């Protein structure tokens, strides 16, 4: 090949790079490894990473069963190793599957249009709010304190340089948005109200009342849904103007926090302000049905600095996992699945209530609940960890005012016996006298 090009050495190809910048040493990266060594390396890391533990963690990342066919299908090279479907004639597989994904997201959320995916639930929420800012021509935003705290942080980052003042509406004794506080925060400048339902505490918000408040003042309501399985049994927030979803629960592995699958769904009339890719139906020259990426004039590769967002790469393959999951469970399965989650949680809350104080008991909930214990939840978790159980998420870091409260989660995968074991260990609270030694160990468990 060098001869064909008329060169003597590969080095000549790099002649355009000034010599003083060329690297004359080896990179400091691990030595070349055989496939067997690579597999071994990651198996070892896996053993250091909670392999074999039972977990009661949720908080925006949920452990649900993943049907085997998801990985069989997404592992097909034609899906796995394809690029963004710009060349429609040889991308109909990806395009049609996204069209089906968009349709099912609409069916489940009660919205009229959905995009092909966003990075995750947090960035989807931030982008949905920015969409409302463009649509209303207003700039300020009211955010529920019961929204995932990390989603709130992401929105704050996105808002910093957009001149978007944020205010935070607290929650009441039932864990839901304090509506009278919210009412005071909404002004004629409010572009959007952003809430989550079921919210960070697992409680289902009174979406209709909040929508009324927002709409009465000309603001838009953006609802974040972090636990997609809730849609199997909880009425979707149909009153919302924009829904920003995290679809991880639908067949996406926990994967230490990503990749996940954000989605934005909204009303047809707002579609031209939507960020992200959209697939639309059309026909070919012979009139046959086909699918293409459409309304691209919203996007960065056409509009550059005037685009609705800078998003380019999205989460396509993860959206395909979500798509297959929705197809597997379908109309009946999603409901039955959600019902099992509800039942496990109802049982767990009943058991936990015997040994700790169940916070926010006054409102309906899906699969998460907050337990306030006399003892520091980190100490409880330390005990649980010895039994290979990961307890609820201590909330002090995000909500110092909640003291010794922790957020617990049950899904269809949580067994009655693990609930009973965990409750038993929580019950030891009262009798436990911790030594200084144990206190030190507790710090290690803390995040």
């Amino acid at each position: 090949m060098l001869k064909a090009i008329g060169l003597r050495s590969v080095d000549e190809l790099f002649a355009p790079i000034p010599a003083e910048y060329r690297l004359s040493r080896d990179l400091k990266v691990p030595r070349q490894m055989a496939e067997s060594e690579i597999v071994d390396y990651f198996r070892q890391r896996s053993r250091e990473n909670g392999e074999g533990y039972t977990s009661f963690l949720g908080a925006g990342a949920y452990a649900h069963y993943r049907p085997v066919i998801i990985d069989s299908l997404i592992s097909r090279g034609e899906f796995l190793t394809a690029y963004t479907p710009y060349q429609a004639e040889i991308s109909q597989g990806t395009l049609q599957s996204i069209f089906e994904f968009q349709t099912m997201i609409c069916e489940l959320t009660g919205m009229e249009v959905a995009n092909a995916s966003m990075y995750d639930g947090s960035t989807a929420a931030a982008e949905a709010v920015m969409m409302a800012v463009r649509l209303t021509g207003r700039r300020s935003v009211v955010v529920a304190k019961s929204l995932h705290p990390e989603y709130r942080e992401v929105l704050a980052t996105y808002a910093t340089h957009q001149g978007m003042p944020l205010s935070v509406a607290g929650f009441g004794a039932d864990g839901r948005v304090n509506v009278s506080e919210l009412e005071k925060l909404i002004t004629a400048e409010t572009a959007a109200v952003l809430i989550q339902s079921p919210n960070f505490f697992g409680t289902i918000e009174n979406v209709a009342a909040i929508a009324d408040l927002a709409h009465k003042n000309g603001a838009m309501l953006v609802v974040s849904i972090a636990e997609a399985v809730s849609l199997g049994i909880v009425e979707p927030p149909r009153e919302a103007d924009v829904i920003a979803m995290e679809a991880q629960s639908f067949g996406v592995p926990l994967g230490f926090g990503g990749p996940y699958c954000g989605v934005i769904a909204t009303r047809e009339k707002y579609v031209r302000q939507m960020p992200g890719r959209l697939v639309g139906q059309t026909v070919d020259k012979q009139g046959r049905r086909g699918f293409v990426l459409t309304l691209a004039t919203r996007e960065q590769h056409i509009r550059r600095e005037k685009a609705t967002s800078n998003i380019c790469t999205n989460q396509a393959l993860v959206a395909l996992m979500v798509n297959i999951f929705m197809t597997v469970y379908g109309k009946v399965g999603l409901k039955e699945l959600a019902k099992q989650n509800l039942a496990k949680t109802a049982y767990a809350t009943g058991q936990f209530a015997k040994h700790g104080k169940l916070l926010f008991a006054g409102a309906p909930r899906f699969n998460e609940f907050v337990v306030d214990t006399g003892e520091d939840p980190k100490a409880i978790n330390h005990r649980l960890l010895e039994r290979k159980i990961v307890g609820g998420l201590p909330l002090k870091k995000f909500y110092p005012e909640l003291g010794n409260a922790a957020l617990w989660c049950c899904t269809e995968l949580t067994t009655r016996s693990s609930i009973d074991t965990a409750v038993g260990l929580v019950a030891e609270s009262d009798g436990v006298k911790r030594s200084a030694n144990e206190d030190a160990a507790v710090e290690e468990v803390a995040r």
Partner: protein
Amino acid sequence: MKHETRKATLHVNQNEGLIFEKSSAGKAAWKLPPLDVPEVDTAKLLGSSERKDFGNMPEVSEIEIIRHFTRLSTWNYAIDLGMYPLGSCTMKYNPRVNEAVARVEGIANGHPYQPEKISQGALQILKTLSECLIDITGMDAITMQPAAGAHGEMTGLLMVRAYHHSKGRPRKKILIPDSAHGTNPATAAMVDYAVENLKSDSRGMVDIAALEAQMNEDVAALMLTNPNTLGVFEQQIHKIADILHAKGGLLYMDGANMNALVGKVRPGDFGVDVMHLNLHKTFSTPHGGGGPGSGPVAIKKILEPFLPTPVLVTKADGALTFNYDRPQSVGRVRAFYGNFGMFVRALAYIQANGPDGLRQTTEDAVLNANYIRKGLEGTYDLPYSTPTMHEVVFSDKLQAKKGVRTMDIAKRLIDYGFHPYTTAFPLIVPGALMIEPTESESKEEMDLFVEAMKSIAQEVEEDPQTVLDAPHSTRVSRLDETAAARKPVLRWKPAV
């Protein structure tokens, strides 16, 4: 009995309908275990929040789902099927060991909030990959949080903004060459910077005189892709950096084309202050039909205080932990820690290559691009004769005389069994054909590609209509994109 041979396009494989059209009540592909806790009264627990209506969600069996998606998959082109010469997209082979290790239990199922004590495996992966990427880029620190390249650009510019703010001099604009990706100006706008266009010189590089004239203390940074989108290395890169630095500006590098540099030259050594990488380009994580990606941002020391939270640190006892106490941080850009599954794959790729392999990868990528350039020079117009790195840009100037444009040639290429190259980009080349073979292609595959491109050029001379009507071999012919945009149908609805 009358026999009728059906056309392939009528075959069931080729006419798979929408999943909703296969649905019928009672079919199911799921099974839940018996409930080990008491049943609940949903109406009592949820009241008016109980869902009643499931719209048109499908009901299908498992074999139908398998066939549905398998049939759909056969309508896709993929790297696994053949060469994917998309310029600036770096469509290289996606090693299968990456997929295998990403699915090991503790890695696939780790919860982002599980105690750090039982997260050391994941944190170790994060640390090792970070160290590799820092050395590969020649930078001082890195954040792995951004979910894709454009997200990385935003994170990088947020840090640039925070840096200037800390100096007490917030600046107003970002300089962006006319050859840049669309994400660059879109990102600058998201971070509330004005965009000022910087023109390229006759060799396709930054016009140094123009840069000197445009550089002043209102300029926060220059966003530069290097090698640029013409596949040309900015030979005056040190001068560019000096001009910026002299006036207090920063040099941002879009790392989309890092596949031309790994192991051979490091951006940190030629004056770059901040840059993003695309793990889904340079480091072999699969494109998956459009994502997921991962866009780590590597920075010089001066920007370290502004890294997004949390930052991974090593404790005195050697354990890894996240530090959230970062008062000057730009904040979080994503929940949790980034697209972790992509980190696993990227690290496996680095391990499979080692220092020698990474260097050779870069050399092969550049060699391949030059081999294609040599093969097609003369047949297609080469607007810039500057030396080529990992990708080469031709124009359709010669073919346009016959009314055939770059998109038509691209569509015809499909009939020859190749994915099209990148069309009509970069914008500074009218009718661009942007070709990046990557290191994955063999000489045999590239010879076939060159032959196909030459054959198309000949068709343009002899029978341009064949090219204009292409593709001829696909399940559907050219699709009406105008109609799709005029009256958008973005979801399926049952016939009424």
